[in-house]
């Protein structure tokens, strides 16, 4: 079975400071991992995805994530938060069958001026 844990339901940072959103997974397979962002009242947008080509994955809007197999983690980071980064972030793992993404519960990021 596969599951995704997002350790923080809410993270608050000041504008210009680093962002760290944590994600851990459990999987009996080599995982495929994604981060999606959802702005208020909007659909989900793909930030980045891990495809096993490189452990450090760069995404849109300055975000990146590092796959660490030994820690079963795929944490999302950004060096400097912007007000427009305030949103809900979902870590996602793919099941190898059944055509399904498994979503974490989400982390709400607030950015303070």
């Amino acid at each position, binding site marked *: 079975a596969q599951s995704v844990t997002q350790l923080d339901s809410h993270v608050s940072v000041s504008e210009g400071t680093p962002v760290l959103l944590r994600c851990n997974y459990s999987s009996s397979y080599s995982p495929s991992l994604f981060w999606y962002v959802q702005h208020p009242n909007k659909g989900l947008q793909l930030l980045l*995805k891990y495809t096993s080509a490189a452990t450090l994955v760069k995404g849109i809007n300055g975000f990146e994530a590092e796959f660490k197999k030994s820690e079963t983690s795929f944490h999302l980071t950004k060096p400097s938060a912007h007000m427009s980064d305030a949103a809900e972030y979902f870590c996602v793992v793919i099941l190898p069958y059944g055509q399904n993404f498994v979503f974490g519960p989400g982390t709400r990021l607030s950015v303070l001026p």
Partner: protein
Amino acid sequence: DAGITQSPRHKVTETGTPVTLRCHQTENHRYMYWYRQDPGHGLRLIHYSYGVKDTDKGEVSDGYSVSRSKTEDFLLTLESATSSQTSVYFCAISESGVTSRNTIYFGEGSWLTVV
């Protein structure tokens, strides 16, 4: 943005009434999905389709049915709505299914309230 239109975007309905949500895509993608989003649960798959008239259940399919008579349209029906089906429903599409080489695109959601 991917061409995905959900309708209606907002609906309030009474317990026991049937409700149909429509997802329309202009991308000619083979796969279409319906998810529901609830606080603390992320998104959970209700049903998906891998072609015209080809559908399968997801993890929370009880109380829902789907139909796909055309590539571009995927309908989600609540036969008899219950308050537990109050949620935000997202349609998604992908060209060739859920793989790391592919991307899933989401619609903007349909807010359903069952009173």
